[in-house]
């Protein structure tokens, strides 16, 4: 009779637990132990790879004893002699073969590892590479693996022979190829199979883009020199005739007009046949149809060759397929920002026709919010005519925060707190709370804005501010203004790219002069010290930048004005601001940035110019780098005015040109940019003073780093046409003004 199991025991397992072994058994307590079950159990336990030997024993009164001999586990793996393939890549390769610290060692894997590693080397052209593994026994049934690699030299390229290229010389073709017969630097003379594949593709597109519609690489041969150190490549090609485009037509359901289709053509009749231009045309048509909602349109370029007179007629066959609709839009990754704060930026709606233009526009708007490190929109096809959109965002810190306690002999203990947050707990609100308290300065500024006061993006905000400064703290000039007041701002979009904004500020200001600053004294004598006013501002801006931090394309123009209507004095003046910033991608890493900035102020109904404390200043980061902050422009006359500080001016003109590029050599340089810049600008009291030599300029290197605490910028600048009275400053840094 068969053996009925009452109890199961395991012997010899030091490392594998009873629990694990039991989980692989085909039998359990109470089952019949038939020979086939025993066989199955042994097989299963062997298949786990844990054991060198497995045996089943029946002991008296129903006890099934399983005796196992465990295989050793791998204690450590060391690799010697590998340069080409780094140790972590080696470990990853070993992982994929199941060879890792702690795993069970089984010697049959060793040959597989040697073979795999050798093939990895051969793939890189290291034909002479050798791999060997030494296994050393360690206590407690463990083993150590020493993988010895002898890389040898990679097979360098002996010769590349191109057969069949009549029209283009060997050298011209070889210069376009990755592989080359001799390379001073880099490894282009080292053979690797992937490089050959891509070179063949390069040759094909080189010819197919110059009219050779029937170009074919017939075959390619790779052979080794007898001592295996050199590789010889032969690429046999057949050029075929050079074709020019005879006619171009569009067939099938074109959806858009023939003229508009012709407008999308990247290739014209009479030009040489060019595969890349045809592909570019197909993409252009596909995008255009996608904008009409036909997201899965198929455009097939049919070429029929007239071999005798080397003409090819092009027929773009258009199959729009069904119009596509968006069913649902899912948002992922917003661990902080609320769903509607993202959804309200989208220009594509659910239960609506799909529009590529709307999706792309939505993507740009999300990137311009500045809430996300990355934002992209994927399309998830559900049926023939419906898609879901998946908005994937990666949050980043949207605030800058600084708090500190300082001490200086002059000022005693000072406390500062500064929090500006552009996405308060994910609600989309902008808020800032700043305060400093020290012996000489007490200031506070609290503000909040809701960019979406209305559903369509009318923004409303306001804030309170208070500032009281004891004299001579700022190094601008020896006077201070204490103000407090309240401000409101309202803005609304006037188009997809432009918006209008209005501001109203009720300001109470007192002017305090340092006693020996005569100019200030005379001013207060004439106009008094106390100025209350209503400041009304209005501005229009047009912005097509493609990102919040470090845009690489688009431009932004803003024109704004401030009208100051005095309530307790007749100091009435206005200020006008004009700013134009232009971004142009030079390549996929270099971006050109040009900026022009004009500020101008003057009095009205009777008063002349603007009060001296409202003057504009220039110098330092944000205006003209390389000069001490606010140090440019005319200065007071020590004798008559009692100070030689810069006066500032009621006209300020700044321009700067910059080439921006990511920090080289580090992978994730998402939040870091370098730039070579040239700044020029100055402040003037009157238009007639504005002459080119008067402009101060500098060139230098800028660094902009978006830290979790806010944008930080450094600059190393060399001032150019400075005079001896100018105060230059090579190194400057600033927290808060992004590039």
């Amino acid at each position, binding site marked *: 009779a068969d053996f009925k199991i009452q109890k199961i025991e395991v012997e010899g397992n030091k490392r594998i*637990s009873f629990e694990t072994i*039991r989980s692989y058994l085909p039998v359990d307590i109470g089952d019949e132990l038939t020979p086939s079950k025993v066989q199955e159990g042994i097989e299963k336990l062997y298949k786990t790879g844990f054991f060198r030997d497995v045996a089943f024993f029946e002991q008296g009164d129903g006890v099934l004893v399983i005796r196992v001999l465990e295989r050793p586990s791998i204690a450590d793996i060391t690799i010697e002699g590998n340069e080409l393939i780094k140790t972590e890549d080696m470990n990853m390769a070993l992982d994929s073969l199941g060879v890792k610290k*702690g795993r069970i060692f089984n010697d049959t894997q060793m040959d597989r590892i040697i073979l795999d590693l050798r093939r990895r080397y051969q793939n890189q052209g290291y034909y002479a590479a050798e791999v060997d593994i030494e296994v050393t026994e360690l206590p407690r049934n463990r083993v150590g693996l020493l993988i010895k690699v002898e890389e040898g030299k990679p097979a360098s390229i002996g010769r590349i022979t191109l057969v069949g290229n009549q029209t283009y010389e060997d050298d011209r073709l070889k210069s376009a190829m990755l592989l080359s017969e001799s390379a001073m630097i880099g490894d282009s003379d080292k053979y690797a199979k992937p490089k050959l594949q891509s070179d063949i593709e390069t040759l094909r597109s080189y010819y197919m883009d110059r009219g050779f519609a029937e170009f074919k690489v017939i075959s390619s041969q790779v052979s080794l020199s007898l001592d295996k150190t050199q590789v010889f490549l032969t690429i046999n090609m057949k050029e075929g005739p050079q074709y020019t485009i005879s006619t171009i037509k569009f067939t099938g359901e074109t959806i858009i007009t023939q003229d508009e289709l012709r407008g999308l053509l990247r290739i014209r009749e009479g030009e040489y046949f060019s595969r890349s231009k045809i592909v570019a045309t197909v993409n252009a048509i596909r995008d255009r149809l996608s904008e009409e909602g036909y997201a899965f349109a198929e455009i097939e370029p049919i070429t029929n060759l007239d071999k005798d007179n080397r003409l090819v007629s092009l027929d773009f066959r258009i199959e729009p397929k069904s119009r596509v609709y968006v069913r649902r839009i899912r948002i*992922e990754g*917003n*661990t902080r920002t609320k769903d509607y704060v993202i*959804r309200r930026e989208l220009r594509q709606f659910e239960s609506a026709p799909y529009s590529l233009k709307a999706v792309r526009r939505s993507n740009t708007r999300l990137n311009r919010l500045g809430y996300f490190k990355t934002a992209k929109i994927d399309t998830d096809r559900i049926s023939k005519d419906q898609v879901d959109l998946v908005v994937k965002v990666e949050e980043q810190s949207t605030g800058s925060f600084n708090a500190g306690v300082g001490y200086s002999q002059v000022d005693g203990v000072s406390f500062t707190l500064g929090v500006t947050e552009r996405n308060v707990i994910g609600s989309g609100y902008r808020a800032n709370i700043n305060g400093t308290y020290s012996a000489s300065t007490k200031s506070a500024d609290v503000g909040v804005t809701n960019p979406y006061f209305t*559903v369509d993006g009318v923004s409303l905000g306001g804030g309170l501010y208070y500032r009281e400064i004891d004299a001579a703290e700022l190094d601008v000039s020896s006077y201070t203004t204490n103000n407090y007041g309240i401000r409101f701002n309202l803005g609304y979009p006037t188009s997809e790219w432009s918006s209008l904004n209005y501001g109203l500020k009720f300001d109470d200001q007192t002017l305090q002069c340092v006693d020996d600053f005569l100019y200030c004294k005379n001013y207060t004598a004439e106009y008094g010290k106390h100025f209350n006013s209503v400041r009304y501002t209005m501005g229009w801006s047009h912005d097509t930048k493609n990102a919040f931090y470090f845009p690489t394309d688009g431009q932004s123009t803003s024109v704004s004005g401030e009208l100051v209507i005095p309530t307790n004095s007749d100091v009435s003046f206005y200020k006008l601001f004009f700013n134009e910033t232009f971004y142009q991608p030079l390549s996929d890493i270099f971006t050109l940035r040009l900026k022009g900035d004009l500020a101008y102020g003057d009095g009205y109904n009777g008063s002349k110019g603007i009060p001296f404390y409202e003057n504009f200043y220039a110098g330092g980061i944000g205006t003209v780098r390389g000069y001490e902050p606010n140090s440019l422009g005319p200065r007071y006359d020590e004798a008559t005015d009692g100070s030689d500080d810069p006066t500032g001016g009621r006209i300020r003109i700044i321009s700067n040109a910059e080439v921006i590029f990511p920090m080289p050599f580090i992978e994730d340089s998402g939040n870091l940019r370098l730039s070579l810049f040239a700044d020029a600008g100055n402040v003037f009291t009157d238009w007639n003073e504005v002459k080119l030599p008067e402009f101060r300029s500098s060139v230098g290197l800028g660094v902009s780093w978006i830290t979790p605490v806010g944008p930080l910028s450094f600059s190393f600048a060399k001032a150019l046409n400075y005079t001896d009275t100018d105060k230059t400053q090579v190194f400057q840094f600033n927290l808060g003004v992004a590039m």
Partner: protein
Amino acid sequence: CSLVEKDESEWTVKDFYEHAKDAYNSEQWESAIEYYEKLKAYYPYGKYAEQSYLELAYSYYRYDEPESAQRELEEFIRLYPKHSALPYAYYLRALSADSINKSWFDSWLTDPASRDMDSTQEAYNAYLELLSRFPTSKYSAKARERLIVLRNRMARHEYQVAEYYFKRKAYLASANRAKFIVETYPRSMVNIYALQLMRDAYQKLGMTQNAEDAQAVIDLNLARIEAQEKEDEN
């Protein structure tokens, strides 16, 4: 534990486990994690390794690294398919997924329903798997409770989006979102509001028949709710 500090590589599995357990009990999750990871590296199989998977996962959970906790638990489930502590493993995995979307503002200022639904869905599936595998485990009650909370959160999310589209006058989008709630989360708290929103959207769209059919269902629901309340009173 052992007085003189032997060099770690000399430690037996017991030494590692004791160090880890001390740190675990005194809630120093960082050093607990360190010792458990070392124990698993040096003694990858056997009794202690089994136990340390679970305690390591719990330490990661309390150390607010839910993804690491999930990884350890999934490894444990794979290695010990019939282990007695599996229900706990599935439950802890669900808890970790549930904690990804947590934020301490939630109780008074913000609503998790307005944030990333991915992790909520993951937690929901984890609790579901626990219930389907171990319907009678001691965690099942708590799991059922969380399922209801999560289901309501997901419904609430749908409702918020439906409301948003209604405000933006995208009535068809709003109607279909509401319809999604009614079909997918019929027993959620927002179900009645979803019905009403759907009816309003259909009215705005001029789809009178859809609106009337929706109204009929609303009346039905309201009647049932009243009956329910009468019953609760007596």
